[in-house]
């Protein structure tokens, strides 16, 4: 063999690949945009995935504001530490805070992706409403049929 190793793609040559790790673990932040998403996030946290910040999906008047204030105060810390942000939304959820969260992430240069939880059949208009909130902000979207789909993606991305 010459000094040019480009042709060294045999099984034997593969053994000489450098075994040193080439990346550190990725910090992935999760934000749940409704109650169904928060429940899924809670189950994932029990499996060892990062605990999600849960935002209120909808409420009226001061109740909504109060519910929002506590998690809103956590947002800067969450994003300051994150390499990537995943939004979690139920297929029929409002995903009302998707834009605001994505804006905060964009201000810190954190890329945003989304999981849309759709375990069964979903009505078109409800799905359209959620999609219209998520699509402008998420650079990738997985329609997940169960928690295992989400776990597979997070694991593959080294969460």
């Amino acid at each position: 063999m010459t000094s040019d190793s480009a042709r060294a793609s045999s099984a034997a040559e593969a053994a000489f690949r450098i075994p040193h790790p080439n990346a550190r673990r990725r910090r992935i932040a999760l934000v749940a945009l409704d109650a169904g998403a928060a429940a899924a996030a809670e189950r994932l946290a029990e499996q060892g995935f990062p605990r999600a910040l849960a935002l209120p999906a909808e409420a009226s008047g001061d109740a909504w504001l109060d519910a929002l204030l506590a998690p809103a105060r956590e947002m800067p810390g969450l994003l300051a530490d994150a390499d990537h942000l995943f939004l979690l939304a139920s297929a029929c959820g409002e995903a009302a805070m998707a834009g605001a969260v994505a804006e905060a992430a964009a201000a810190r240069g954190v890329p945003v992706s989304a999981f849309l939880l759709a375990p069964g059949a979903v009505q078109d208009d409800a799905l359209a409403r959620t999609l219209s909130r998520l699509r402008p902000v998420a650079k990738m979207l997985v329609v997940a049929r169960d928690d295992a789909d989400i776990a597979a993606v997070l694991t593959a991305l080294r969460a």
Partner: protein
Amino acid sequence: MLRREQNELLTRTGPGTAMGRLFRAYWIPALLAEELPEPGCPPVRVKLLSERLLAIRTLDGAYGLIDEFCAHRGVSLWFGRHEEGGIRCPYHGWKYDVTGQCTEVPSEPEENGFCRRIKLTNYPLVKVGDILWTYMGPPEEQPPLPEWEFCRVPPEQTFTSKRLQECNWLQAMEGGIDSSHVSWLHRGALNKDPLFKGAKGNQYNLNDAKPVFEVVDAPGGLFIGARRNAENGHYYWRVTPWVMPSFTMIAPRGDHTVHGHFWIPIDDEACWAWSFDYHATRAIRPEERQAMKDGHGIHVTYVPGTWRPAANKDNDYLIDREAQRRGETMSGVAGIAMQDASLQESMGPIVDRTKENLVSTDNGIIMARHRLLRAAKALAETGVLPPGRDPEHQRIRSAALVLPPDASFVTAAADALRVREGVAHASV
């Protein structure tokens, strides 16, 4: 990233492996029909899923796929001679029919029935379209014959080729569902290749090099949608179906023929890349068919007398550094198929997925692996047969279309994503 044991499970397809059992649940392409062109033609050695087999066509025209080696002393039956009712080993004259049943052992008295106790492994071999398909699983679980549209349209509307790819099947297949590489590796081909150029959709591709991906469950696997900005706030969608275990169909461009692939393991370190082109409503034009034979689009030219691409790892894929410098190709390798194959083979025979660093645009790959792992485990542990066997799962299409911004592409393009006889692909 995959754990080492997950990578092992997904990439090993020999007898007794979980992924091998999964592949053996489907009809898979074994060889081109043209390789056994007539009754009594020379047999063909075929290795599939790490099993060495022999494809034969008897004097009366029947197809068979049997263990390559004579049960007597292990001679390759490729040297065998066709005779009425089967093929005869030239060493000591043992004769077999298309089912692998030994029908004659000349050295033994006919009346003792010795030959009836000898039977080689055999699998069905059936011609559908341009392809001879085989099913290597338990006979009682054999699914209906393949219903892929490309092999059900009239012969003048379809073209199929195959090429040897010298790496594991999974890293080859993952290229087929990784739409994000097109804007880089193949950027020079969209406006030049005769089987791609001229479509309006190409401009959407070239104007927006950062598509957004959506991955959605499908009955047989996944739909992977890549969206780019179009006019009036709408999105241009390119939707790629992936059907288990290894079928993909590329979204169409204009009125060009539609392309797609199967990746079928030869063994754990090589696979067949099957490539088809078809049009649902018209014949392939002579100049299109010639372009396919000349290695354009997703096809290749060959080392004469083989299915090995003329550009291969032993000649550094005929890399042209000047073309790379001029920006005509990204990698210096010519042709879409070999641009893919060269990089996939460079990963090594079986890529070490414990070291990869996937990003969000890789989610089609992530979800496909997840579906394969889940299906392989379900089949191995509880006998649940996997998706993709049902003919309805196979009567699907890719699509390229412009949709409103809030539309689910699976719902809005539901008609476009299924086979409709007499209707062309939805294309831009």
